């Protein structure tokens, strides 16, 4: 194992069981055999369409979902079966919907203060309130905002509060689960810039999950692409954009609308046929073979191996 790795997952798998009648269960195969690591201080982006398991993967790493099998390492230690409380201080999450992730009956100060109390980080009452005020200014709010309730803030400000709450325990690793998707375009860039500044100042490591590939490419050092529970490709962000190997990555890149009329009208895009199959009953072999324009008979039968095809460029596909 590399010493620079903060997070490492090995064959991580998460199935959800659904009761389908008496003693009968079906499984939603949300994450299937994920293998990757996140270096200290880096941002790993995770993209994919809805239902591909990117959020589940992020939450399973934090053990907000218990993994079905596989291992999670934090800074070299196996945390798959340990008591999580000490690690909760180091690993935090920022949620997508800022209004749903804040308690409407707690003031902003109480919400942030609760995190400080649980981990007993403040020495005195004064220290506690100082910390809250410092956090609020850090995320671009005022210290007077501590006495207000979440509904008094706009969406962008609520997301700032969510970030302040995550930062309250001085974490090392943050899972950003679609942190800007619910925000307006003009506010998105404010939050993205702030997350970048925080990373610089505190040396944070991010797992940045989003479906907007432009944002992910902007903020991430490396990007993983997921399809139907599988991580199908992982590479450095510019490499992934300039030289995508997996057919799904190619499609995804070509489907993103570019805000430039000349380019977007001239370029060729690959249009996929059909829809994503159900993760309850995923296709055999390579899960993408039902929609892949290059599929051969082998794709139907054999699960493609996760291979390093170029330095630091991994993909799982038979035909490359």
């Amino acid at each position, binding site marked *: 194992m590399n010493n620079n790795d903060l997070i490492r997952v090995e064959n991580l798998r998460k199935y959800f069981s659904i009761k389908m009648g008496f003693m009968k269960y079906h499984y939603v195969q949300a994450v299937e055999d994920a293998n990757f690591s996140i270096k200290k201080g880096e941002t790993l982006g995770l993209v994919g369409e809805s239902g591909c398991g990117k959020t589940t993967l992020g939450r399973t790493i934090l053990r907000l979902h218990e993994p079905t099998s596989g291992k999670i390492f934090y800074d070299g230690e196996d945390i798959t079966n340990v008591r999580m409380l000490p690690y909760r201080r180091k690993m935090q999450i920022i949620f997508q919907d800022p209004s749903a992730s804040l308690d409407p009956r707690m003031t902003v100060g109480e919400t942030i203060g609760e995190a400080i109390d649980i981990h007993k980080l403040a020495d005195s009452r004064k220290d506690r309130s100082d910390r809250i005020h410092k956090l609020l200014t850090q995320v671009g709010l005022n210290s007077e905002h501590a006495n207000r309730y979440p509904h008094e803030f706009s969406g962008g400000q609520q997301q700032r509060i969510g970030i302040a709450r995550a930062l309250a325990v001085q974490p090392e690793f943050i899972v950003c689960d679609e942190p800007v998707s619910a925000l307006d375009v003009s506010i998105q860039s404010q939050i993205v810039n702030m997350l970048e500044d925080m990373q610089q100042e505190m040396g944070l490591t991010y797992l940045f999950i989003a*479906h907007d590939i432009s944002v992910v490419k902007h903020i991430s050092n490396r990007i993983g692409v997921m399809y139907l529970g599988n991580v199908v490709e992982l590479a450095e962000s510019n490499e992934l954009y300039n030289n995508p190997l997996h057919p799904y990555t190619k499609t995804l890149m070509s489907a993103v609308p570019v805000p430039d009329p000349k380019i977007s009208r001239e370029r060729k895009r690959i249009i996929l046929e059909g829809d994503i199959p159900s993760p309850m009953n995923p296709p055999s072999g390579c899960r993408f073979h039902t929609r892949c324009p290059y599929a051969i008979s082998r794709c139907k039968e054999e699960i493609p191996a996760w291979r390093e095809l170029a330095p630091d460029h991994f993909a799982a596909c038979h035909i490359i």
Partner: protein
Amino acid sequence: MNNMVNNMDKKNQKLLEVKDLRVSFFTPVGEVKAVGGISYDLNYGEVMGIVGESGSGKSVEAYAIMGLLQSPGKVVGGSITFDGEDVLAKSEKEMQAFRGNQVSMIFQNPMTCLNPVYTIGDQLIEAIRCHKKISKAEAREKSIEMLKLVGINNPERRMNQYPHEFSGGMRQRVMIAMGLICDPKMLIADEPTTALDVTIQAQIIELMKDIQQKTQMAIIFITHNLGVVAEICDRVTVMYAGKIVEQGNVEDIFYRPHHPYTMGLLRSMPRLDAEEYERLIPIEGTPVDMLNPPAGCPFGPRCEHCMKICLRREPPQIDLGNGHTAACWLLVDEAKRLAKKEETPNE
């Protein structure tokens, strides 16, 4: 398709004319001027994008055209002329004949627009038979033809299925089929791809482009996604806080924007095709509180070029030629001179 021939003939003629339209919502805490006096034209066969953030009034304005505003919302001023007819003067009964037949609308969330207890076929047939006196069998045939047009495989079988048996992208296709089934002259698409994934979004955009080319119908495409606008629209209207801040053809807006808000929007978006990492330049500040909008230019408090006059008086629409207009004091020569004076008060 009679309208198709019509649409071809009348290209470059005015189809829709909105003049100084004002829509307000009378809430218990005060009047919200959701649309504060907007004017624009749309020609036959033209695709216009309306871009704006949430709360900019872009959807409300579309609802006003369709006569679908619900209490406490009300049109408080201005006029809407569609194909020579005054839309606002129509009675509810006339509006029923107007909607679906002349103009139809597709919405962001297709699941909430389809009735879950009727089959897709029943709903499509109902949509035709509301407007046209044809037999059920003919309507059924027409429905199947429309489903084929929007790229639904096996339409005969799909006709007997319920909305829950369709995926999100397929439901949006059904909605488009339903919108087009009476050959409307104009289609209003309110964020039709926002709820969809990128690969499905690409499918739907291709479909809409294709259908537009075949039928030459006019489309108003409401979205917050500038990428989608670049792809499909001929002209773009940028809205902010219930006002039109800039309007022009797609090239003028993307390559020669003149309003600071439009410039800010374009700058603040990360580009997928960026070679080097560049820090984003955000638009500072928070969106307008529509209950207490600022005096003067609504964008003034967030604008980096804000001058004294911006906070006092509303800017006029400045004509930049070629149908390109922008509402900004920076473009008024007089204001430029005043601004210079303010900067150097000692001279």
